[in-house]
């Protein structure tokens, strides 16, 4: 029995959080260094999601939505809990005897307040600029991401439809969107794998995909090493679980436009 077979049954329990004690610790240690077992764990978690489908019930009451939106409004991103800035009790405790110190403090706070107002005005201005930029980006991206958008690819009138892939890659944001069409169907157990060809080093796996019945497919933000410079992208056919290195000839390739 191989080491992976030894862990196969424990992986299913781990995916359900049903593995405990020493067995769980041992498997967690193995997972840290074993990509094939991690991949199997991901698939088993996908399988557990199927079980969730059998849950049926009423929709949540309307108040739940309101409660969530109010919580979000109270909690700007990155600030989990607002700090209590009340200092009233402190003031009362000091009493009149500390009046002189209070005046000094008040002056200091007034001065800080001016600085904070400037900072706030600057931050508000930056936020407004970010919102404006986001709105512009939304408008630009709408024809790509809106499900109602018509998608038309123009080719030579005499040429049969050819497989085509478009990769949109932002190195600095580690963000990759890949769209493909006219992809030929694949045998069972096989899938296409997208590769990022770096300027130096071996091809990097950039997502496994299977085309739908019309030959369309997409890969969105696969895990990639941060800041990798891409010389080109390529596609091969691999086993559906994906490969760490290409095992078949390159079917499609393209460099930056």
């Amino acid at each position, binding site marked *: 029995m191989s080491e992976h077979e030894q862990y196969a049954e424990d992986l299913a*329990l781990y995916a359900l959080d049903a593995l*405990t004690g020493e067995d769980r610790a041992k498997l967690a240690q193995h997972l840290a260094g074993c990509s094939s077992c991690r991949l199997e764990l991901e698939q088993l*978690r996908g399988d557990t999601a*199927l079980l969730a489908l059998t849950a049926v019930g009423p929709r949540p009451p309307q108040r739940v939505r309101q*409660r969530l939106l109010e919580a979000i409004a109270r909690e700007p991103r990155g600030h989990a809990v607002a700090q209590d800035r009340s200092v009233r009790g402190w003031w009362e405790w000091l009493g009149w005897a500390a009046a002189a110190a209070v005046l000094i403090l008040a002056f200091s706070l007034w001065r800080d307040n001016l600085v904070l107002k400037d900072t706030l005005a600057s931050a508000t201005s930056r936020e407004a600029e970010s919102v404006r930029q986001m709105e512009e980006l939304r408008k630009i991206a709408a024809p790509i991401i809106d499900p109602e958008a018509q998608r038309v690819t123009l080719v030579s009138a005499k040429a049969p439809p050819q497989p085509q892939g478009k990769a949109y890659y932002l190195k600095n944001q580690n963000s990759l969107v890949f769209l493909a069409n006219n992809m030929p169907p694949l045998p069972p157990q096989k899938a296409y794998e997208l590769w990022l060809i770096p300027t130096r080093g071996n091809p990097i796996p950039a997502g496994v995909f299977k085309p739908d019945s019309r030959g369309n497919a997409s890969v969105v933000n696969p*895990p990639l090493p941060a800041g990798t410079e891409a010389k080109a992208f390529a596609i091969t056919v691999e086993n559906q679980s994906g490969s760490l290195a290409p095992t078949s000839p390159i079917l499609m390739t393209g460099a930056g436009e």
Partner: protein
Amino acid sequence: MSSQQRQDVPADLAIVTGLKTGDQRAIASLYDRYSSVVYAVALRVLGDTGAAEDVLQEVFLQLWRNPDAFDSARGSLGSWLSVITRNRAIDSLRKRRPETDIEDVVLSVAPDLAGEAERSRAAEKVRGVMGAMAPAQRTALEMAYWEGMSHSEIADKTGEPLGTIKTRIRAGLIALRKSFHADRSTGR
């Protein structure tokens, strides 16, 4: 991928992008698409509407605080939310600290749960597979999934050997996976 799923991918992508930029409208869209799935899973585990509402709130807030935890390249948003919800509901049921960070929950291939019609068809399929399982296997799988019991607790309760419980649970999950792979390869 069905036409519904083709539409879900860009819609989910827009939601995730909005969450990453701190757009509060994205959380409203997320809620409108997935609150029924999340609530149904939490209610099935906890059997208490107040506790299910708390889990729903916690799951959506966690994604708001840490939108990078969901990797859109690996599984659908609806499937990921259902797994996270089930895990949090079990933690709540068993009054324990979360066993798994949401960043560590990565799914590989899973059906999309966004469309009502897709969800209904897939649920029917899952019920069929579960119904065809031997009762002892179905019971072990449901105890682990819906009650959050460990393999040793299931073995104690059913009087079956530990190894048998492990085998039944894994075989049950693989049977579910195979039924959906068979659907994909036949284009259903």
